[in-house]
Protein backbone atom coordinates (compact mmCIF):
# COMPACT_ATOMS: atom_id res chain seq x y z
CA UNK A 1 0.00 0.00 0.00
CA UNK A 2 3.03 2.22 0.46
CA UNK A 3 3.49 3.13 -3.19
CA UNK A 4 0.79 5.59 -4.01
CA UNK A 5 -1.00 6.18 -0.75
CA UNK A 6 1.07 8.95 0.79
CA UNK A 7 0.52 12.50 -0.35
CA UNK A 8 2.97 13.57 -3.09
CA UNK A 9 5.38 16.44 -2.45
CA UNK A 10 3.92 19.63 -3.89
CA UNK A 11 6.52 19.90 -6.68
CA UNK A 12 5.36 16.63 -8.32
CA UNK A 13 1.98 17.45 -9.77
CA UNK A 14 0.13 14.13 -9.89
CA UNK A 15 -3.45 15.25 -9.51
CA UNK A 16 -5.68 14.37 -6.55
CA UNK A 17 -4.67 11.63 -4.13
CA UNK A 18 -5.86 8.11 -5.08
CA UNK A 19 -8.15 7.83 -2.08
CA UNK A 20 -9.89 11.07 -3.04
CA UNK A 21 -10.34 9.84 -6.61
CA UNK A 22 -11.64 6.50 -5.35
CA UNK A 23 -14.20 8.19 -3.13
CA UNK A 24 -15.30 10.46 -5.96
CA UNK A 25 -15.72 7.69 -8.54
CA UNK A 26 -17.44 5.34 -6.11
CA UNK A 27 -19.88 8.03 -5.05
CA UNK A 28 -20.53 8.77 -8.71
CA UNK A 29 -21.18 5.14 -9.63
CA UNK A 30 -23.44 4.56 -6.63
CA UNK A 31 -25.40 7.69 -7.56
CA UNK A 32 -25.73 6.39 -11.14
CA UNK A 33 -26.84 3.00 -9.82
CA UNK A 34 -29.57 4.42 -7.62
CA UNK A 35 -30.82 6.97 -10.14
CA UNK A 36 -30.95 4.43 -12.95
CA UNK A 37 -32.72 1.84 -10.84
CA UNK A 38 -35.21 4.00 -8.97
CA UNK A 39 -35.96 6.92 -11.25
CA UNK A 40 -35.17 5.58 -14.74
CA UNK A 41 -34.16 9.08 -15.78
CA UNK A 42 -30.86 8.18 -17.42
CA UNK A 43 -32.29 6.70 -20.63
CA UNK A 44 -30.82 9.54 -22.68
CA UNK A 45 -27.33 8.89 -21.28
CA UNK A 46 -27.76 5.20 -21.98
CA UNK A 47 -28.97 5.83 -25.52
CA UNK A 48 -26.06 8.09 -26.36
CA UNK A 49 -23.51 5.62 -24.99
CA UNK A 50 -25.31 2.84 -26.84
CA UNK A 51 -24.79 4.77 -30.08
CA UNK A 52 -21.03 4.35 -29.50
CA UNK A 53 -21.13 0.76 -28.29
CA UNK A 54 -23.67 -0.64 -30.73
CA UNK A 55 -21.42 -0.79 -33.85
CA UNK A 56 -18.68 -2.54 -31.87
CA UNK A 57 -21.20 -5.01 -30.52
CA UNK A 58 -22.52 -5.77 -33.98
CA UNK A 59 -19.01 -6.37 -35.25
CA UNK A 60 -18.40 -8.76 -32.34
CA UNK A 61 -21.57 -10.67 -33.18
CA UNK A 62 -20.66 -11.14 -36.86
CA UNK A 63 -18.46 -14.27 -36.54
CA UNK A 64 -21.17 -16.08 -34.60
CA UNK A 65 -23.89 -15.27 -37.07
CA UNK A 66 -21.61 -16.18 -39.98
CA UNK A 67 -21.05 -19.61 -38.43
CA UNK A 68 -24.81 -19.98 -37.98
CA UNK A 69 -25.38 -19.00 -41.59
CA UNK A 70 -22.74 -21.44 -42.83
CA UNK A 71 -24.21 -24.29 -40.78
CA UNK A 72 -27.64 -23.53 -42.16
CA UNK A 73 -26.24 -23.51 -45.66
CA UNK A 74 -24.46 -26.83 -45.18
CA UNK A 75 -27.61 -28.57 -44.01
CA UNK A 76 -28.39 -28.74 -47.62
CA UNK A 77 -31.17 -29.43 -50.03
CA UNK A 78 -32.69 -32.52 -48.52
CA UNK A 79 -33.69 -30.92 -45.27
CA UNK A 80 -35.01 -27.89 -47.08
CA UNK A 81 -37.12 -30.12 -49.28
CA UNK A 82 -38.44 -32.04 -46.28
CA UNK A 83 -39.23 -28.82 -44.45
CA UNK A 84 -40.94 -27.49 -47.54
CA UNK A 85 -43.07 -30.62 -47.78
CA UNK A 86 -44.01 -30.39 -44.13
CA UNK A 87 -44.94 -26.76 -44.49
CA UNK A 88 -47.09 -27.47 -47.56
CA UNK A 89 -48.75 -30.27 -45.67
CA UNK A 90 -49.38 -28.05 -42.66
CA UNK A 91 -50.75 -25.35 -44.91
CA UNK A 92 -53.16 -27.80 -46.46
CA UNK A 93 -54.18 -29.02 -43.03
CA UNK A 94 -54.99 -25.57 -41.78
CA UNK A 95 -56.52 -24.39 -45.05
CA UNK A 96 -60.15 -25.18 -44.17
CA UNK A 97 -59.87 -23.26 -40.92
CA UNK A 98 -57.98 -20.38 -42.47
CA UNK A 99 -60.40 -20.01 -45.35
CA UNK A 100 -63.30 -19.75 -43.00
CA UNK A 101 -61.47 -17.57 -40.49
CA UNK A 102 -61.85 -14.43 -42.56
CA UNK A 103 -65.55 -14.98 -42.99
CA UNK A 104 -65.95 -15.80 -39.31
CA UNK A 105 -64.07 -12.71 -38.24
CA UNK A 106 -66.33 -10.56 -40.37
CA UNK A 107 -69.34 -12.33 -38.94
CA UNK A 108 -68.05 -11.94 -35.41
CA UNK A 109 -67.49 -8.25 -35.97
CA UNK A 110 -71.01 -7.80 -37.28
CA UNK A 111 -72.48 -9.69 -34.36
CA UNK A 112 -70.46 -7.69 -31.88
CA UNK A 113 -71.71 -4.53 -33.54
CA UNK A 114 -75.25 -5.80 -33.19
CA UNK A 115 -74.62 -6.51 -29.51
CA UNK A 116 -72.99 -3.06 -29.11
CA UNK A 117 -69.82 -4.69 -27.78
CA UNK A 118 -66.56 -2.96 -28.53
CA UNK A 119 -64.84 -4.44 -31.56
CA UNK A 120 -61.80 -6.59 -30.99
CA UNK A 121 -58.52 -4.93 -31.73
CA UNK A 122 -56.59 -6.36 -34.62
CA UNK A 123 -53.02 -7.46 -34.06
CA UNK A 124 -50.54 -5.61 -36.23
CA UNK A 125 -46.81 -5.24 -35.91
CA UNK A 126 -43.41 -5.61 -37.46
CA UNK A 127 -40.99 -8.49 -37.66
CA UNK A 128 -37.63 -8.04 -35.96
CA UNK A 129 -34.56 -10.23 -35.80
CA UNK A 130 -33.08 -11.17 -32.43
CA UNK A 131 -29.47 -9.96 -32.55
CA UNK A 132 -28.10 -11.44 -29.34
CA UNK A 133 -28.91 -12.09 -25.71
CA UNK A 134 -27.79 -9.39 -23.31
CA UNK A 135 -24.72 -10.51 -21.37
CA UNK A 136 -26.13 -9.50 -17.98
CA UNK A 137 -26.41 -12.80 -16.05
CA UNK A 138 -28.90 -11.34 -13.57
CA UNK A 139 -31.75 -10.85 -16.02
CA UNK A 140 -33.24 -12.38 -19.17
CA UNK A 141 -33.19 -9.98 -22.05
CA UNK A 142 -32.57 -10.10 -25.78
CA UNK A 143 -31.65 -7.34 -28.21
CA UNK A 144 -33.61 -6.99 -31.46
CA UNK A 145 -32.54 -5.18 -34.60
CA UNK A 146 -35.30 -2.55 -34.74
CA UNK A 147 -35.37 0.52 -32.57
CA UNK A 148 -36.60 4.08 -32.44
CA UNK A 149 -35.91 4.51 -36.15
CA UNK A 150 -38.55 1.84 -36.85
CA UNK A 151 -40.98 3.42 -34.41
CA UNK A 152 -40.58 0.90 -31.61
CA UNK A 153 -41.51 2.27 -28.18
CA UNK A 154 -41.03 0.77 -24.74
CA UNK A 155 -43.99 -1.34 -23.65
CA UNK A 156 -44.76 -3.09 -26.93
CA UNK A 157 -45.29 -6.85 -26.62
CA UNK A 158 -43.20 -9.29 -28.67
CA UNK A 159 -44.51 -12.67 -29.85
CA UNK A 160 -43.26 -15.48 -32.01
CA UNK A 161 -45.17 -18.08 -34.00
CA UNK A 162 -46.10 -20.04 -30.86
CA UNK A 163 -46.87 -17.39 -28.26
CA UNK A 164 -45.76 -14.45 -26.16
CA UNK A 165 -41.99 -13.91 -25.91
CA UNK A 166 -41.73 -10.73 -23.86
CA UNK A 167 -42.03 -7.00 -23.80
CA UNK A 168 -39.88 -4.16 -25.14
CA UNK A 169 -38.38 -2.42 -22.11
CA UNK A 170 -35.79 -0.07 -23.60
CA UNK A 171 -35.30 1.41 -27.02
CA UNK A 172 -32.12 2.59 -28.66
CA UNK A 173 -31.81 4.34 -32.04
CA UNK A 174 -31.17 1.12 -34.00
CA UNK A 175 -32.03 -1.62 -31.54
CA UNK A 176 -34.36 -2.39 -28.69
CA UNK A 177 -34.21 -4.51 -25.59
CA UNK A 178 -36.91 -7.13 -25.05
CA UNK A 179 -37.35 -8.48 -21.52
CA UNK A 180 -38.45 -12.09 -21.75
CA UNK A 181 -41.48 -13.33 -19.83
CA UNK A 182 -39.15 -15.65 -17.88
CA UNK A 183 -37.31 -12.65 -16.37
CA UNK A 184 -37.78 -12.26 -12.64
CA UNK A 185 -39.33 -8.82 -12.90
CA UNK A 186 -41.78 -9.68 -15.64
CA UNK A 187 -45.48 -10.36 -15.05
CA UNK A 188 -48.16 -11.24 -17.61
CA UNK A 189 -51.90 -11.23 -16.86
CA UNK A 190 -53.28 -14.55 -18.07
CA UNK A 191 -56.43 -16.58 -18.27
CA UNK A 192 -56.68 -20.37 -18.03
CA UNK A 193 -58.26 -21.58 -21.24
CA UNK A 194 -60.07 -24.55 -19.70
CA UNK A 195 -61.68 -22.79 -16.72
CA UNK A 196 -61.60 -19.16 -17.77
CA UNK A 197 -59.98 -18.16 -14.48
CA UNK A 198 -57.82 -15.03 -14.53
CA UNK A 199 -54.50 -14.64 -12.79
CA UNK A 200 -51.01 -13.25 -13.26
CA UNK A 201 -47.99 -15.30 -14.24
CA UNK A 202 -44.53 -14.26 -13.03
CA UNK A 203 -41.10 -15.17 -14.38
CA UNK A 204 -38.82 -17.11 -12.07
CA UNK A 205 -35.50 -16.29 -13.72
CA UNK A 206 -34.59 -19.92 -14.39
CA UNK A 207 -36.55 -20.36 -17.61
CA UNK A 208 -39.80 -21.19 -15.84
CA UNK A 209 -42.86 -19.21 -14.84
CA UNK A 210 -45.03 -19.32 -11.76
CA UNK A 211 -48.77 -18.78 -11.50
CA UNK A 212 -49.18 -16.96 -8.20
CA UNK A 213 -52.04 -16.15 -5.87
CA UNK A 214 -54.17 -19.15 -6.85
CA UNK A 215 -55.91 -20.79 -3.85
CA UNK A 216 -54.66 -24.26 -2.89
CA UNK A 217 -57.86 -25.86 -4.13
CA UNK A 218 -57.97 -23.90 -7.40
CA UNK A 219 -59.16 -25.66 -10.51
CA UNK A 220 -55.80 -25.97 -12.26
CA UNK A 221 -54.42 -29.13 -13.82
CA UNK A 222 -51.09 -30.08 -15.30
CA UNK A 223 -51.25 -29.35 -19.02
CA UNK A 224 -53.56 -26.36 -18.75
CA UNK A 225 -52.79 -23.67 -21.30
CA UNK A 226 -52.56 -20.05 -20.19
CA UNK A 227 -53.38 -17.28 -22.65
CA UNK A 228 -53.12 -13.52 -22.21
CA UNK A 229 -56.25 -12.08 -20.64
CA UNK A 230 -55.84 -8.64 -22.17
CA UNK A 231 -56.67 -6.86 -18.93
CA UNK A 232 -53.44 -4.90 -18.79
CA UNK A 233 -53.91 -2.95 -22.04
CA UNK A 234 -50.45 -4.17 -23.10
CA UNK A 235 -51.01 -7.66 -24.48
CA UNK A 236 -53.95 -8.39 -26.76
CA UNK A 237 -56.29 -11.08 -25.58
CA UNK A 238 -55.77 -14.73 -26.45
CA UNK A 239 -52.04 -15.20 -27.14
CA UNK A 240 -50.69 -18.44 -25.62
CA UNK A 241 -48.20 -17.75 -22.83
CA UNK A 242 -47.39 -20.91 -20.91
CA UNK A 243 -48.39 -24.43 -20.06
CA UNK A 244 -48.73 -25.75 -16.50
CA UNK A 245 -46.05 -28.39 -15.85
CA UNK A 246 -46.06 -28.92 -12.09
CA UNK A 247 -48.42 -28.17 -9.21
CA UNK A 248 -47.47 -28.33 -5.54
CA UNK A 249 -50.51 -28.23 -3.28
CA UNK A 250 -49.60 -27.86 0.37
CA UNK A 251 -52.47 -27.31 2.78
CA UNK A 252 -50.12 -25.43 5.12
CA UNK A 253 -50.12 -22.55 2.67
CA UNK A 254 -53.18 -20.80 1.37
CA UNK A 255 -51.78 -20.64 -2.16
CA UNK A 256 -50.77 -23.45 -4.48
CA UNK A 257 -47.38 -23.30 -6.14
CA UNK A 258 -48.00 -23.70 -9.86
CA UNK A 259 -45.02 -23.89 -12.22
CA UNK A 260 -45.39 -23.31 -15.94
CA UNK A 261 -43.16 -23.58 -18.98
CA UNK A 262 -43.29 -20.94 -21.69
CA UNK A 263 -44.92 -22.03 -24.94
CA UNK A 264 -42.99 -19.72 -27.25
CA UNK A 265 -39.35 -20.48 -28.00
CA UNK A 266 -38.50 -17.81 -25.46
CA UNK A 267 -34.83 -18.52 -24.97
CA UNK A 268 -34.00 -19.45 -28.58
CA UNK A 269 -32.65 -17.19 -31.24
CA UNK A 270 -34.78 -16.31 -34.21
CA UNK A 271 -37.32 -13.76 -35.24
CA UNK A 272 -40.02 -12.11 -33.21
CA UNK A 273 -43.02 -9.99 -34.11
CA UNK A 274 -43.24 -6.74 -32.20
CA UNK A 275 -46.92 -5.84 -31.95
CA UNK A 276 -48.08 -2.25 -32.16
CA UNK A 277 -49.07 -0.68 -28.87
CA UNK A 278 -52.72 -1.19 -27.98
CA UNK A 279 -55.27 1.55 -28.35
CA UNK A 280 -55.74 3.70 -25.25
CA UNK A 281 -58.18 2.16 -22.75
CA UNK A 282 -61.80 3.27 -22.94
CA UNK A 283 -62.81 6.35 -20.92
CA UNK A 284 -63.90 5.71 -17.33
CA UNK A 285 -67.60 4.96 -16.79
CA UNK A 286 -69.87 8.00 -16.60
CA UNK A 287 -70.94 7.62 -12.95
CA UNK A 288 -67.45 8.36 -11.61
CA UNK A 289 -67.24 11.24 -14.06
CA UNK A 290 -70.42 12.67 -12.59
CA UNK A 291 -69.04 12.43 -9.08
CA UNK A 292 -65.80 14.11 -10.04
CA UNK A 293 -67.72 16.72 -12.06
CA UNK A 294 -69.22 18.81 -9.28
CA UNK A 295 -65.82 19.28 -7.71
CA UNK A 296 -64.26 20.33 -10.98
CA UNK A 297 -66.64 23.12 -11.95
CA UNK A 298 -65.04 26.00 -10.08
CA UNK A 299 -61.82 24.78 -8.68
CA UNK A 300 -60.98 28.13 -7.12
CA UNK A 301 -64.14 28.51 -5.07
CA UNK A 302 -65.15 25.01 -4.12
CA UNK A 303 -62.58 24.07 -1.49
CA UNK A 304 -63.11 27.28 0.47
CA UNK A 305 -66.87 26.73 0.64
CA UNK A 306 -66.36 23.17 1.80
CA UNK A 307 -64.02 24.21 4.54
CA UNK A 308 -66.42 26.93 5.65
CA UNK A 309 -69.25 24.42 5.72
CA UNK A 310 -67.24 21.94 7.76
CA UNK A 311 -66.16 24.57 10.30
CA UNK A 312 -69.26 25.01 12.49
Amino acid at each position, binding site marked *: *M*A*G*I*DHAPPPFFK*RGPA*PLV*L*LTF*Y*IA*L*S*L*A*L*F*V*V*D*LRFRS*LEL*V*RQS*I*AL*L*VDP*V*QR*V*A*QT*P*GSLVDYALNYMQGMRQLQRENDELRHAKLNTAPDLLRLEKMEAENERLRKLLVVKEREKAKGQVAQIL*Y*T*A*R*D*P*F*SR*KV*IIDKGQQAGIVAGQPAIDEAGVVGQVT*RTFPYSA*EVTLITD*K*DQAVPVQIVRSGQRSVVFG*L*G*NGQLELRYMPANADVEVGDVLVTSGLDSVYLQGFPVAKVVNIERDSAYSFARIFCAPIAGVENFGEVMVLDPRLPPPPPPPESKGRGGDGGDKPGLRPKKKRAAKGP
Partner: protein
Amino acid sequence: MQPTFTSSRILLPVRPWFIFFSLIVALLLNFLPTANWPGVPDWVALVLCFWSVREFRRVGMGWAFVLGLLMDVADGAVLGQHCFAYVLLAYLSASLSRRLLWFPIAQQALQVLPLLLLTQIVQALMRLVVGADFPGWGYFAAPFVASLLWIPATFILLLPQYQPVEQNPDRPI
Protein backbone atom coordinates in the same frame (compact mmCIF):
# COMPACT_ATOMS: atom_id res chain seq x y z
CA MET B 1 10.85 -1.16 -16.00
CA GLN B 2 11.47 -4.91 -15.79
CA PRO B 3 9.02 -7.78 -16.38
CA THR B 4 9.26 -8.41 -12.62
CA PHE B 5 11.41 -6.43 -10.20
CA THR B 6 13.74 -9.40 -9.67
CA SER B 7 14.48 -9.74 -13.39
CA SER B 8 17.49 -8.02 -14.91
CA ARG B 9 15.87 -7.40 -18.29
CA ILE B 10 14.94 -3.84 -19.00
CA LEU B 11 11.78 -3.20 -20.97
CA LEU B 12 11.08 -0.42 -23.43
CA PRO B 13 8.58 2.21 -22.26
CA VAL B 14 4.95 1.29 -22.98
CA ARG B 15 3.22 2.95 -25.91
CA PRO B 16 -0.04 4.67 -24.92
CA TRP B 17 -1.82 3.55 -28.09
CA PHE B 18 -1.05 -0.06 -27.26
CA ILE B 19 -2.77 0.27 -23.88
CA PHE B 20 -5.78 1.79 -25.61
CA PHE B 21 -5.76 -0.90 -28.29
CA SER B 22 -5.56 -3.74 -25.78
CA LEU B 23 -8.50 -2.35 -23.80
CA ILE B 24 -10.59 -2.08 -26.99
CA VAL B 25 -9.72 -5.67 -27.89
CA ALA B 26 -10.76 -6.74 -24.39
CA LEU B 27 -14.09 -4.95 -24.87
CA LEU B 28 -14.57 -6.75 -28.19
CA LEU B 29 -13.83 -10.09 -26.53
CA ASN B 30 -16.43 -9.28 -23.89
CA PHE B 31 -19.03 -8.56 -26.56
CA LEU B 32 -18.55 -11.93 -28.28
CA PRO B 33 -21.44 -14.38 -27.96
CA THR B 34 -19.13 -16.68 -25.97
CA ALA B 35 -19.36 -14.25 -23.05
CA ASN B 36 -22.54 -15.98 -21.88
CA TRP B 37 -20.80 -19.31 -21.33
CA PRO B 38 -19.94 -20.14 -17.74
CA GLY B 39 -16.29 -19.69 -16.86
CA VAL B 40 -15.49 -17.25 -19.67
CA PRO B 41 -13.56 -14.46 -17.93
CA ASP B 42 -14.31 -10.78 -17.90
CA TRP B 43 -11.54 -9.73 -20.29
CA VAL B 44 -11.88 -6.03 -19.54
CA ALA B 45 -11.36 -6.64 -15.83
CA LEU B 46 -8.27 -8.73 -16.54
CA VAL B 47 -6.64 -6.23 -18.91
CA LEU B 48 -7.59 -3.29 -16.72
CA CYS B 49 -6.09 -5.03 -13.71
CA PHE B 50 -2.92 -5.72 -15.67
CA TRP B 51 -2.41 -2.12 -16.75
CA SER B 52 -3.36 -0.77 -13.32
CA VAL B 53 -0.62 -2.91 -11.81
CA ARG B 54 2.03 -1.99 -14.37
CA GLU B 55 1.13 1.56 -15.36
CA PHE B 56 -1.02 3.07 -12.64
CA ARG B 57 0.05 6.58 -13.68
CA ARG B 58 -1.50 6.08 -17.12
CA VAL B 59 -4.44 3.77 -16.51
CA GLY B 60 -6.31 4.81 -13.43
CA MET B 61 -9.78 4.98 -12.02
CA GLY B 62 -10.98 7.38 -14.72
CA TRP B 63 -10.40 4.74 -17.37
CA ALA B 64 -12.00 2.14 -15.15
CA PHE B 65 -15.08 4.29 -14.77
CA VAL B 66 -15.49 4.91 -18.51
CA LEU B 67 -14.96 1.22 -19.34
CA GLY B 68 -17.49 0.34 -16.67
CA LEU B 69 -20.05 2.64 -18.24
CA LEU B 70 -19.50 1.06 -21.66
CA MET B 71 -19.87 -2.43 -20.21
CA ASP B 72 -23.04 -1.45 -18.34
CA VAL B 73 -24.70 -0.17 -21.49
CA ALA B 74 -23.53 -3.11 -23.59
CA ASP B 75 -24.71 -5.64 -21.02
CA GLY B 76 -28.07 -4.05 -20.40
CA ALA B 77 -27.07 -3.99 -16.73
CA VAL B 78 -27.94 -1.23 -14.28
CA LEU B 79 -25.73 1.82 -14.89
CA GLY B 80 -23.00 2.05 -12.27
CA GLN B 81 -22.68 -1.66 -11.60
CA HIS B 82 -19.52 -2.30 -13.60
CA CYS B 83 -18.28 1.24 -12.88
CA PHE B 84 -18.20 0.56 -9.15
CA ALA B 85 -16.49 -2.81 -9.49
CA TYR B 86 -13.88 -1.64 -12.03
CA VAL B 87 -13.00 1.52 -10.08
CA LEU B 88 -12.46 -0.60 -6.99
CA LEU B 89 -10.36 -3.05 -9.01
CA ALA B 90 -8.21 -0.27 -10.48
CA TYR B 91 -7.60 1.27 -7.06
CA LEU B 92 -6.72 -2.00 -5.36
CA SER B 93 -4.42 -3.20 -8.12
CA ALA B 94 -2.66 0.17 -8.26
CA SER B 95 -2.01 0.07 -4.53
CA LEU B 96 -0.81 -3.55 -4.80
CA SER B 97 1.47 -2.93 -7.73
CA ARG B 98 4.70 -2.19 -5.79
CA ARG B 99 4.45 -5.49 -3.95
CA LEU B 100 2.98 -7.63 -6.68
CA LEU B 101 5.81 -7.15 -9.18
CA TRP B 102 8.38 -8.61 -6.79
CA PHE B 103 6.84 -12.05 -7.16
CA PRO B 104 7.30 -14.55 -9.99
CA ILE B 105 4.42 -14.57 -12.45
CA ALA B 106 2.65 -17.67 -11.10
CA GLN B 107 2.47 -16.14 -7.65
CA GLN B 108 1.28 -12.86 -9.14
CA ALA B 109 -1.63 -14.74 -10.63
CA LEU B 110 -2.51 -16.10 -7.19
CA GLN B 111 -2.47 -12.60 -5.72
CA VAL B 112 -4.61 -11.19 -8.50
CA LEU B 113 -7.31 -13.80 -7.91
CA PRO B 114 -8.85 -12.10 -4.84
CA LEU B 115 -9.08 -8.81 -6.71
CA LEU B 116 -10.90 -10.34 -9.68
CA LEU B 117 -13.12 -12.37 -7.38
CA LEU B 118 -13.97 -9.22 -5.46
CA THR B 119 -14.96 -7.50 -8.72
CA GLN B 120 -17.42 -10.27 -9.43
CA ILE B 121 -18.76 -10.52 -5.87
CA VAL B 122 -19.31 -6.77 -5.63
CA GLN B 123 -21.39 -6.82 -8.82
CA ALA B 124 -23.42 -9.80 -7.65
CA LEU B 125 -24.05 -8.18 -4.26
CA MET B 126 -25.16 -4.91 -5.85
CA ARG B 127 -27.71 -6.71 -7.99
CA LEU B 128 -28.88 -9.18 -5.36
CA VAL B 129 -29.52 -6.36 -2.88
CA VAL B 130 -31.93 -4.72 -5.30
CA GLY B 131 -33.74 -7.98 -6.04
CA ALA B 132 -32.17 -9.73 -9.02
CA ASP B 133 -32.07 -13.51 -9.12
CA PHE B 134 -28.94 -15.49 -8.28
CA PRO B 135 -26.93 -16.12 -11.46
CA GLY B 136 -25.55 -19.51 -10.39
CA TRP B 137 -22.10 -20.56 -9.22
CA GLY B 138 -20.76 -20.57 -12.79
CA TYR B 139 -20.71 -16.79 -12.51
CA PHE B 140 -18.03 -17.00 -9.82
CA ALA B 141 -15.90 -19.47 -11.80
CA ALA B 142 -14.84 -16.76 -14.25
CA PRO B 143 -12.28 -15.03 -11.94
CA PHE B 144 -10.45 -18.34 -11.40
CA VAL B 145 -10.05 -18.77 -15.15
CA ALA B 146 -9.05 -15.12 -15.45
CA SER B 147 -6.31 -15.43 -12.85
CA LEU B 148 -4.92 -18.46 -14.70
CA LEU B 149 -4.92 -16.29 -17.81
CA TRP B 150 -2.76 -13.73 -15.99
CA ILE B 151 0.32 -15.67 -17.11
CA PRO B 152 -0.34 -15.61 -20.90
CA ALA B 153 -1.76 -12.09 -20.58
CA THR B 154 1.47 -10.83 -19.04
CA PHE B 155 3.44 -12.40 -21.85
CA ILE B 156 1.26 -11.04 -24.64
CA LEU B 157 0.71 -7.55 -23.28
CA LEU B 158 4.43 -7.05 -22.57
CA LEU B 159 5.48 -8.37 -25.98
CA PRO B 160 5.83 -4.95 -27.67
CA GLN B 161 8.09 -3.79 -24.83
CA TYR B 162 10.73 -6.52 -25.04
CA GLN B 163 14.06 -5.57 -26.61
CA PRO B 164 15.94 -7.83 -28.98
CA VAL B 165 18.32 -10.17 -27.16
CA GLU B 166 21.35 -9.34 -29.35
CA GLN B 167 22.00 -5.71 -28.76
CA ASN B 168 24.17 -3.26 -30.51
CA PRO B 169 27.09 -2.69 -28.07
CA ASP B 170 27.34 0.93 -29.20
CA ARG B 171 23.77 1.62 -28.08
CA PRO B 172 23.23 -0.16 -24.78
CA ILE B 173 19.61 0.90 -24.26
